[in-house]
């Protein structure tokens, strides 16, 4: 049965790949942060280096694509398909440590609502062909919250802090609440100073307290951050309207067909409707196309701008399809867009749009059984 699941993905062309199973653990840990450590199957090699089994196919396939592009390959669309094992520590004990993923990663195709919708439709079609019936889709878009943050009238440091905080549980609220509290006396004493002025204050304090610099983190970095902190003190806390806007977007959960209009209303209240128009149009067009081409799992579908924010690769459209009831927490289909990953992973050496979709046949089989 497994051999047929990836059939719809063949229409994208490309080749079937099976990249390295063993990776340096530093790769997923640097990319996703320590939150993923509890999920990695790790071991120590003969040189005492931490290694990990691939937690999914996206990461090793993206690394292979970086190598291909960095080697001077012709740019343009490239599709890698796979039907291969991945390895993860289960969150709940009845999940296997070793499982198969059937999916594809598509690089260099136009990043727009058509390719977003096509990715979802392919995963939906594959799940349907494999016998899934009672699935429910969940949608998100990890570009929306950063998009709203960017449109608000906030300092660059505050914007950057909010975008980071968005990816952490309870992060935005913690960040906004912190903005209200007072900065350290030292930082408040720096208000109004330019870089040279702050540098002088830092030298003064180092001398007074007998502090010597001894860290890979340079004094230049310390000064840059002090400038940003002093600037935030001058500008005061995040204004009430901006705060309310962010909290409303973050909390939003609605049927996907209503998402664009609801967000337009929020944007209008915040006075950023014009700036938000393009991303909300894309959201609307994407879902319209999805409902026309792949209506199967949309019955009780939900949309939320914060859905999927813990999946650190993704930075745009994201989706999951899961069974109902107790299978709801174990999606059998998933996918999303990660246009920035190749650039970040290669430290800017290569850059290509990216989107992928995947089926978990083991979970699909369980969802099918419990749906009977």
């Amino acid at each position: 049965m497994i051999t047929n699941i990836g059939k719809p993905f063949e229409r994208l062309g490309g080749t079937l790949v099976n990249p390295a199973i063993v990776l340096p653990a530093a790769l997923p840990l640097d990319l996703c942060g320590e939150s993923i450590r509890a999920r990695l199957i790790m071991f120590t090699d003969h040189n005492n280096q931490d290694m990990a089994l691939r937690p999914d196919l996206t990461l090793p396939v993206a690394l292979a694509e970086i190598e291909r592009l960095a080697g001077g390959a012709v740019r343009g669309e490239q599709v890698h398909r796979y039907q291969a094992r991945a390895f993860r520590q289960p969150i709940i004990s009845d999940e296997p440590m070793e499982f198969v993923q059937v999916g594809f990663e598509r690089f260099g195709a136009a990043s727009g609502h058509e390719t977003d919708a096509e990715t979802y439709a392919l995963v939906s079609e594959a799940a349907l062909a494999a016998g899934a019936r009672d699935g429910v889709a969940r949608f998100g878009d990890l570009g929306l919250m950063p998009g709203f943050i960017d449109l608000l009238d906030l300092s660059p440091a505050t914007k950057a802090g909010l975008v980071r905080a968005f990816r952490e549980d309870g992060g935005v609220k913690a960040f906004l609440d912190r903005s209200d509290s007072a900065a350290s006396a030292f930082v408040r004493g720096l208000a109004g100073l330019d870089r040279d002025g702050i540098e002088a204050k830092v030298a003064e304090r180092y001398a007074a307290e007998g502090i010597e610099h001894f860290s890979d983190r340079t004094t230049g970095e310390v000064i840059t951050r002090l400038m940003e902190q002093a600037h935030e003190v001058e500008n005061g806390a995040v204004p009430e309207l901006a705060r309310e806007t962010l909290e409303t977007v973050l909390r939003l959960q609605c049927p996907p067909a209503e998402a664009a209009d609801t967000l337009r209303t929020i944007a209008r209240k915040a006075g950023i409707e014009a700036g938000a128009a393009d991303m909300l149009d894309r959201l609307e067009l994407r879902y319209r196309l999805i409902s026309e081409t792949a209506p199967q799992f949309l019955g009780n579908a939900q949309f939320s701008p914060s859905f999927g924010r813990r999946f650190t690769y993704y930075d745009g459209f994201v989706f999951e399809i899961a069974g109902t009831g107790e299978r709801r927490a174990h999606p059998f289909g998933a996918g999303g867009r990660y246009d920035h990953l190749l650039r970040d992973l290669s430290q800017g050496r290569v850059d290509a749009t990216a989107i992928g979709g995947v089926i978990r046949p083991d979970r699909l089989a369980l969802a099918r059984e419990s749906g009977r």
Partner: protein
Amino acid sequence: MSALTLAIPSKGRLKEKSESFFAAAGYTLVQDGGERGYRARLEGADGVSVLLLPARDIAQGLIDGAFHAGITGEDLLHEQAETPGRQAVVIKRLGFGGADVVVAVPNCWLDVSTLTDLDAAGALFRQTHGRRLRVATKYMRITRRHFAKASFGEYRLVYSAGATEAAPASGAADMIVDITSTGATLAANNLKILDDGVLLKSQASLTVSRPADWTQPARTALGDLCKNLRLDHGADAFVAKL
């Protein structure tokens, strides 16, 4: 055959203080095979056998259910348990062996006094150096749990079994999470504790193991022991929940 097995630290101040704790209630610790034996009994407590073990092994044994109760550090219980408090339940904090698990950074980082500052510093660091800030610690789980709760994600863990406070100066890591009682060692290594950097206030604790084999005689023996140690409340509550 004893009804209840109790584990207490096998050496150092923790052992001495544990002995005094039992002596105050009229129990004398008698080691089989003299000072070096690892089996003992409490004179005055029939049906209780004692194991003398390293504090780390006691924490693990309590989590696994290898014995009924024991005295160990809360830092070890929090570090070694996937979900602290689920398998090993503290019924009495004993007021000795106190120390804090703290986050400490180089004192030259004048811009960093909270975890939120650290997150921003870490993001800029990653942009500048192409890697995340490295945190040296032997408390991998406590650190990960607490940093996730504090929405701080810009770091990588580096395991450090000892002399952790030297890691930033040697370049093995950028900052540390370590245990300290006075903070003097940190200061001597030019490190400062963050304002919100106390992750755990730990002390030696009498702890019972939920997954241990709780026969009726074991419950009775724990109840009797705790009554004499004047810990009725904690033990009752625990035995009632078994």
